[in-house]
């Protein structure tokens, strides 16, 4: 500890030796406030100092920055399509400026409210349930003492993630098939899929089923960093299993939970296209028609680049706002944030 203690003194000596301390950084007693002094230096000096100290960090993030700049920021001009009338002759850089025309067209579309309602309902259920389930699963798996069983459970729960959407939907159909399906044989002569109100539960339950094992991996990784000394201490205090979960496991994964929650908030208006599209039928359409399917019908089939881009951008902005707000709240409340 002695080395740490002598550190400020050495720094102070060095600083005064430099002899160019701005007046604002010296308090009434003539003691120099180093931080303040550093902040008051001219910009080039500060930059030089910054890079002198932080150049390794810049080197480490440089490749990532370059890739993102090239492959994410360079093509971003494509978003302008949402505000212009796409003109095939002039290409993507041309077209007449129409401002918010396509956004208005979307808001005034007879289906706007239905689409928004369905998208919010389906994605919120999936978001909340899909967020809670992996946490519970991770805590449960962490409770398994036998490493072989633990590994088995982990592998099994992780497998459904790799089943393609097409097959998942086929299985939903087969299982719910009235008369013969493993579930459908108990539900009368109509499929549960014909009941529009059951669309959302069927959707999120299968989503949770498919992805909770995969999503819990990150929490299991976080749990691996738990300080086992904490368990010892808790045990000595007579903690039972529930207490251990409550006072050791949950606090350990809490920062990860926070980050995952913020990230998930950024998908509040995203419902994947393929699964909904494949699960749709005439009977559940009023409850299953979502923005992504509509964009597909309008934009891809109808070849309307500008309209499609505008709807996509609207979606994105809503999602981004949710993420930023969630990030802000989390930062204030728990100092967990992604930026």
């Amino acid at each position, binding site marked *: 500890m002695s080395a740490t203690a002598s550190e400020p003194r050495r720094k102070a000596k060095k600083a005064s030796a430099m002899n160019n301390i701005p007046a604002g950084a010296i308090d009434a007693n003539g003691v120099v406030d180093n931080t303040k002094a550093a902040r008051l230096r001219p910009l080039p000096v500060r930059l030089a100092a910054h890079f002198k100290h932080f150049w390794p960090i810049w080197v480490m993030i440089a490749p990532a920055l370059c890739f993102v700049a090239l492959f994410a920021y360079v093509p971003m001009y494509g978003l302008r399509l949402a505000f212009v009338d796409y003109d095939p002759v002039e290409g993507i850089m041309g077209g007449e400026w129409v401002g918010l025309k396509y956004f208005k067209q979307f808001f005034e579309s*007879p289906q706007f409210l239905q689409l928004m309602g369905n998208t919010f309902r389906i994605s919120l259920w999936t978001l909340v349930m899909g967020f809670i389930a992996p946490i519970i699963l991770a805590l449960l798996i962490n409770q398994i003492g036998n490493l072989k069983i633990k590994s088995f459970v982990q592998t099994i729960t992780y497998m459904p993630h790799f089943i393609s959407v097409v097959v998942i939907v*086929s299985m939903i159909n087969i299982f719910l098939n009235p008369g013969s399906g493993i579930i459908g044989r108990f539900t009368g002569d109509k499929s549960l899929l014909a009941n529009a109100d059951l669309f959302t539960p069927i959707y999120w339950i299968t989503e949770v089923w498919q992805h909770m094992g995969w999503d819990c991996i990150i929490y299991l990784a976080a749990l691996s960093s738990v300080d086992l000394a904490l368990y010892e201490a808790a045990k000595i205090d007579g903690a039972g299993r529930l207490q251990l979960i409550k006072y050791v496991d949950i606090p350990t994964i809490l920062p990860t939970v926070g980050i995952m929650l913020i990230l998930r908030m950024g998908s509040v208006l995203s419902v994947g296209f393929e699964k909904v599209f494949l699960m749709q*039928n005439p009977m559940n359409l009023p409850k299953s028609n979502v923005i992504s399917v509509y964009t597909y019908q309008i934009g891809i089939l109808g070849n309307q680049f500008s309209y499609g881009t505008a709807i996509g951008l609207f979606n994105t902005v809503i999602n981004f706002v949710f993420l930023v707000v969630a990030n802000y709240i989390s930062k204030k409340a728990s100092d967990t944030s992604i930026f």
Partner: protein
Amino acid sequence: MTVRNAAIKVTAITASLAMLGAMAACGNKKEAAVNADGKPIVSVLVVKNTNQAKLADQQWAKDLEADCDCDIEWKEVTDDQWGQQKNPTLASKKIADVSIRAFTPTDTAQYSHLFEDLSQNMDKLSNVKAFFKEKPEAQKLTTDPEGHMYVIASSRGKAYAGSGQHLMINKSWLDKLGLDVPTTWDEFENVLKAFKTQDPNGNGKDDEIPFNIRKLDTGGFGWYSPMLLMNSTGIVTGFNKGPTQQGYYVKNGKVASYLISDEFKSVIKYYNKLISEGLIPADWSTKDADPYYAEQVSGNTGAIFGWSLADFGDYADQYESIPVPSAPGVSADDTVWDLSTNEYENNKLAISASAPNKEAAYKVANLLYSEKYSVQQFGGSFGDTVTDDGNHTYTFDAKKIDQLTNDNQFPGLADRLAGWIPDEVTIKGDDNADDIKKVNDPLEEQRSHADPVKDYIPDYVTPSADDNTTLSNLNTPIMNYVIPQIATWMSDGGVDDGWDSYVQQVKSLGVDQGVEIWQKWYDEYTK
């Protein structure tokens, strides 16, 4: 720790190699217009079915190269890929010199600056000229009102002139129960009842499905839609493609929407009756395609809408196609049938306006439309799967073709050919054509009850890009409202009570505007 350090080094090296590779790739990208032998290079993009073999390896493709004295660079993509690649290639102006089955007349109209106006260069396309002389309707298919043509249609021969959509019924059941082929809805219903109650398959179990229908497509009415029964009422459908998929039809030159017609209502009511009597499975509205097919090949189905008898697998010889029964109050002469055709496709061959070797590109295009290459595109190379018997007669080796198809190695383009099989050509051993002819013949008479122009919006009527957009924006909400509504009525009834407010709602969604647009273009093209 050393293992990890080594791993880091390895990854670092791989990464830098990857970068170098990228740069190298940038560096040597130059497209020469001639190859090493000085022959002009022509790039040909083909959108293939995934069960078709690599074209570049086929003998006919090599012959084609020799005949045009050029170097063909084949680019072969699947539908799946092309669905994603089409728009970016158009927007970035990176289209191949010759594109086969890649662009529809709507695409080429929108991006007309990228394509050659072929109508100006018919002299270089003598085979296409001959094609149009024999089949003027093929020329109409892709010619816009100003006379431009950016893409050429194709024909796979008169054998495929039918719609490919048929009402097929279990004839052996009819015979067993001593019933006649039904000609009216009432008779049809009675037949279905007999199928249900009299155990025609004779296994003692109540497992017959008297009539099986496909679930409604949420985007509109298409292939084998239950709404084919509209033809019973005298409204002609064209469910292969075109405006009747969205409800627009024409009668005596006047366009209307059948979605708000009494005929449509009567079809819904009829279906509701059949469903409530258990003659159609109660879960029809949610049944996926796979279980539907599984039932179809089980031999337990009385009647379906489908392509050909082969749909029934091992039970094919029990079935036959029949004319659609007439609705009450509609005479047999007024009963019609779907007027779609499978003979032509309108998206076959386009030439890039910026092709470096235009002459060679035209030469390739013209050769493809010759009889020699059309037949080979259709069935594979001469001497391999096709024999040229002389005098415009060819024999397909059906067995070999079957085998290759099963191995995903079909040696040609089949129905995707960019060519023309002239009427004078006879092809033996084309199983598909034989199958389809068998089911088409009983319907020919009914098809002739309607006028192909006055009672059917011809396939060559193409609204402008702007109007297409308007139509798409109108039709999406209309269909999203109509389909669930009628599915409910068909299953649970109630059409009488809800009909008036339904009509109001469809009108408020702008169906009249859609009718107006189609009337305008119908008049423009048929005047």
